[in-house]
């Protein structure tokens, strides 16, 4: 044990500091399983003052801090593999205030997303940011990564729901940003710099989130499409005719992995190469009739082959599992995950080129397609063949990245639509952002964290 570590444990005993092997392993990693965790210790601050104390200590002793929430990230943003001190927000899990008039809720950063959703629902309200991991992801992490998810099409990103926040900068200053104001035209809105900064500008300790009225009753359709062009043609039609809250797609190979889990049944007997999952407002028979019209018109146009519609909320939830269980069902196959986006209008062309590229260069890999296609976001997962070593596969994925990101760049897209950059994507930042932008980001980071103690090595590539 290092002398430094020796002193951290008693120093932060009140914050539950620990460094046993299990805790280091658990709190040193996120969901990306990319690097071996190797943190110095883990601490559990209980309030903003504790976080200030930690930052001051880190500055004095030159220790790096890694903020840690629900650890559901997929880009290594919360990984501590270089003797950092992990700052877990787990104990900061209180709901501080509810404002029914705004309506808004103020919570500590460690409150779990689903807790906010449930609280809102109990008040007859709705918090719309939602994704498969909302049962464990935390608000602080959502804000730090500007989390997206399945309802972006209708409700936007986390950014659109953050009314204010308390944040501790790398100099230990406490900033109260925007004070939950709706209107506030007083200069640069630093709140928006913090959103998506992946813990590199400050440690978010409290957040005020906007809430809204719940949507009307929803129904879910899963329709089978013969190819990606038709998935997009169907999107245009559905968007026109229905009030959509989600438009997702997945390939038949993706579906097969979910079905192999043995807990789901296919939507219908005939299998099609692609499926679209459409969630839309459906309060009465006339809404259902419009959905039927969309279906029969798209059937006639050759966009769909077959389709089902939920008749209960339970069935809607069951249909959602076909899409939401994909990630989990393929995770043991160590997929190389791509989270890319282009403008929706350019998607059909982009997808064709991407498909051709993968076919030509990487026919040996099983490619799993799914994503929030209605907002231009594609989750492209390339599975490691069983007989390949992890090392060999990792080497090959570097070449895949170069190919795929090159194409993303050509289409002015994003190499990380909603997963952030973390450790995994940071070196490819220049495929999505200009050198001038990256240079400004470096300077901004220095302003907030001159000593470089906040999540170093994440988000930005090392300077050349």
């Amino acid at each position, binding site marked *: 044990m290092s002398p430094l570590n020796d002193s951290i444990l008693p120093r932060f005993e009140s914050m539950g500091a620990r460094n046993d092997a299990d805790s280091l392993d658990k709190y040193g990693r996120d969901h990306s399983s990319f690097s071996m965790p190797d943190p110095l210790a883990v601490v559990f601050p209980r309030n903003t003052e504790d976080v200030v104390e930690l930052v001051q200590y880190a500055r004095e002793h030159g220790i790096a801090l890694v903020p840690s929430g629900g650890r559901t990230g997929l880009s290594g943003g919360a990984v501590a593999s270089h003797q950092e001190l992990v700052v877990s927000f787990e104990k900061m899990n209180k709901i501080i205030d509810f404002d029914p008039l705004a309506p808004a809720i103020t919570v500590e950063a460690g409150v779990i997303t689903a807790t906010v959703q449930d609280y809102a*629902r*109990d008040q007859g309200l709705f918090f719309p940011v939602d994704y498969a991991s909302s049962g464990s992801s935390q608000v602080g992490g959502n804000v730090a990564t500007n989390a997206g998810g399945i309802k972006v099409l209708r409700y936007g990103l986390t950014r659109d729901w953050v009314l204010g926040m308390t944040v501790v900068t790398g100099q230990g200053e406490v900033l109260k940003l925007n004070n939950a104001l709706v209107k506030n035209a007083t200069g640069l809105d630093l709140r928006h710099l913090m959103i998506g900064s992946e813990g590199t500008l400050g440690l978010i300790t409290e957040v005020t989130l906007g809430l809204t009225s719940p949507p009307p*009753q929803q129904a879910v*359709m*899963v*329709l089978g499409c013969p190819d990606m062009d038709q998935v997009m043609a169907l999107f245009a039609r559905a968007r026109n005719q229905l009030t959509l809250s989600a438009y997702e797609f997945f390939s038949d190979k993706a579906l097969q992995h979910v079905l192999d889990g043995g807990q789901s*049944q296919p*939507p*219908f007997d005939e299998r099609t190469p692609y499926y679209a999952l459409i969630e839309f407002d459906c309060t009465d*028979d006339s809404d*259902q009739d419009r*959905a*039927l019209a969309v*279906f*029969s018109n798209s*059937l006639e146009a050759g966009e769909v082959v*077959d*389709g*089902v*519609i*939920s*008749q*209960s*909320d*339970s*069935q*809607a*939830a*069951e*249909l959602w599992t076909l899409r939401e269980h994909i990630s989990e069902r393929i995770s043991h196959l160590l997929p190389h995950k791509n989270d890319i986006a282009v403008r929706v209008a350019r998607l059909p062309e982009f997808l064709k080129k991407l498909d051709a590229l993968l076919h030509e260069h990487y026919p040996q890999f099983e490619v799993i397609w799914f994503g929030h296609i209605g907002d231009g976001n594609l989750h492209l997962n390339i599975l490691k063949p069983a007989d390949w070593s992890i090392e060999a596969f990792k080497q090959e994925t570097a070449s895949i990245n170069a190919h795929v990101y090159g194409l993303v760049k050509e289409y002015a897209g994003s190499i990380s639509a909603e997963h952030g950059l973390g450790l995994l994507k940071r070196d490819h930042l220049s495929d999505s952002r200009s050198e001038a932008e990256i240079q400004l980001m470096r300077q901004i980071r220095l302003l907030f964290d001159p000593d470089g103690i906040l999540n170093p090595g994440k988000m930005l590539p090392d300077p050349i």
Partner: protein
Amino acid sequence: MKILVCLKQVIDYQVRVQVNPDATGVVTDGVKMSINPFDEIALEEALRLREAGKATEVVAVSIGNASVKTQLRTGLAMGADRALHILSETAIDPLTAARVLLKIVEHEAPGLVIMGKQAIDDDCNQTGQMLAALWDRPQATFASELLVDGQTARVTREVDAGLETIEVDLPAVVTTDLRLNTPRFVKLPDIMKAKRKPLDESPIDSYGIEAANAAQALNYAQPPERKKGVMVDSISELVEAMKQRGVL
């Protein structure tokens, strides 16, 4: 053979049920209503029997106000051949439901009546048994497997001690448990087809039965909130905590 399937409209399983402000019932306005999940399993089983050539016709029946037609349409879209709507503006108790169903059974003469073992709203678990008694026919409740062979049905029942397999002569009443099957999704073309299937409506009093409810609900309340669990950091703490509570 004809199969009669009973579909009850209930608040959707996924809805968080709220007690209304004057504590006389639960909020149903704007709340998603669905087929009782056990009844949905009953319909699925009937459809599978028809598809296997063991039955020739599946008739769905529901008792309730005008809105239960939505669930009957769903039943038709799943594959029922026709539907009967017994119109009753007021909620009825299981015995009244069984009396109405008896009239329908006498008229339709099904070889099998399948329904859920209970409805997820009142959890009564009575209607199937009462119908069998009034009809004076065998009953096989809590079915997790149903095999029809000629004039008999072999039914595996989920009982407290495990599984029990019995054989009943048809006609009979079978009530379904969760593990019997997984109901199919409704295909969009079938919803269109369902609109053309017969759905006959008749008021409950046309059967000479009064819409009655022998039980009177006095008060409704939310279940008490569960106490939050305590996280302990180690086994020894757990043992200590259990000792303190006198569990160990």
